[in-house]
């Protein structure tokens, strides 16, 4: 079933929408959730929450890219759950490693966090991604959006682990420069 037919099922409030979503995107959402939570049960619950959120959002929302739309929800829910679980013990998993890497791009300026809105930073990152070569952009998003491990990315691309790590280091540096240039650091 194609995406528009699945979205039509949501609009018709037909519960088969959830089954079709699970059948087509269940594995995709699970892989995102598992990358974050590294726990089967937590990942399954996050996927389940993803479907519920999609059910409540469509309609009125009509996503043009259903997979990416669901992936966004799954990532948001999983990171939220990861934060709750790890509130007192920030250890383990790709999120923790990715966060440490992102420290480099986030900087340590004195700008109060409240001054910089999430939406502003997201828009800036969108502009930044537009400037990146295709391969760098994909690798950056595999690492920091999908939270894939560097080993996995190396396996998928055929590049060496050190090449991926160095590419990511370079991209983080560019991102930091752009955020600083736009006054977001």
């Amino acid at each position, binding site marked *: 079933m194609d995406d528009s037919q699945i979205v039509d099922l949501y609009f018709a409030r037909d519960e088969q929408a959830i089954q079709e979503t699970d059948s087509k995107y269940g594995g*995709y959402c699970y892989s995102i959730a598992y990358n974050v939570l590294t726990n089967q049960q937590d990942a399954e619950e996050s996927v389940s929450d993803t479907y519920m959120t999609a059910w409540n959002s469509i309609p009125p929302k009509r996503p043009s890219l259903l997979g990416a739309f669901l992936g966004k929800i799954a990532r948001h829910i999983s990171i939220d759950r990861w934060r709750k679980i790890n509130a007192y013990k920030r250890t383990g998993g790709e999120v923790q490693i990715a966060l440490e890497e*992102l420290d480099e791009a*986030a900087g340590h300026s004195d700008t109060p966090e409240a001054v*910089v809105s999430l939406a502003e930073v997201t828009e800036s990152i969108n502009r930044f991604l537009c400037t990146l070569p295709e391969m760098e952009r994909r690798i950056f998003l595999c690492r920091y959006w999908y939270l894939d491990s560097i080993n996995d990315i190396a396996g998928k*691309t055929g590049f060496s682990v050190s090449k991926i790590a160095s590419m990511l280091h370079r991209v983080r540096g560019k991102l930091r420069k752009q*955020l600083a240039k736009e006054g977001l650091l």
Partner: protein
Amino acid sequence: MTRDLLLDAIGGVDESYIADAQILRDGKASFVHRRFPRKTMFLIAAIIVSLLAFTVYAAESGRISNWALDYLCGTNQVLEDSYARTAEEVYQNVNQTIEVNSCAVTLQAAISDGKRAFLSFHVVLPDEMKSDALHYSFEAKPMETDYPEASDQKPGVASYGWRTIPDGNPEDNEIDLLFDSFASNGNSVVPHNGYSWSFELKELCASNRDANGKVTVESIAQGPWIFHFTFSSQYSQEPVELIQEPVSIWAANSLIINRLNLKYPCLFSIESLQIRAMTATCTVKLPKWVPVGDFEMRPITLSMKNGDVIPIQWDNLLNDGSGTLNLHGTFPVPIDAGNIESVLFPGGIREPVSETIQ
């Protein structure tokens, strides 16, 4: 900025980028990675080049049949019916009628409001196509989605969508089609003055219902019909602010707490409310205790002078924790700001707007 904020911000990037990166995860992207030794690659390339050279030679000298040439080089399908494929490019102005595949197509309206663009066609089919068709539909495909005015300055192939709005009167032999272009991330997609825009109509279909109620869809004319539009400022609408002062509203049963689906009343402050022809923008302040995540806002509706009540449909009601949200809304049909009598907020608060607009 904290690394957590950066991680969250990355989570909100454009969906087209996310889908694109998934290609790499699926292993469908092309890589520099060399699977074969250099000598083997050279050998394979030499064989392919030799085969191609032989094919061209054989075709030129008539030593292989046409079907084989067609198979190798590809060929266009030709329809057997009288409505054969045409590939003409059509230039059309508002209120102008053109004929494509024996169908008279009139562009009735073209409006852009800075967030969405709207086109309305009126199509009259020839008598021989009439039969007992219940409704017709176009399959629309954007040909060019490089909007230079988009605020992110990138060609947004996957950022912009098209949809058709169903024919209001399916039993006649006429079709009113609305093409609706919108940006998923709130970017400006306004085709500004003088900007040409083109897209492709692929197919015109008729749907017929038999005695058992089974619906069959039949293709009665195939394109592509390529339309070009050049927008002028005459068809663009500026945003209109509907409220002068912030409005506080008790949006009862407005909040969904996690998956428990518990709903609590919540006092929102509407700081600003702007409308355009087809979109609305609203700035909302939420109390600090509202948790991050989805929430539900009771409808804000427009009361029109002709008695119509039009709800604003909000996209992505998601509290990102910042406390101030910029909501993007849409209307099912284009709105004329001069015809709005009042805005009705949850809790029965009515804000007259006619003076503001004047």
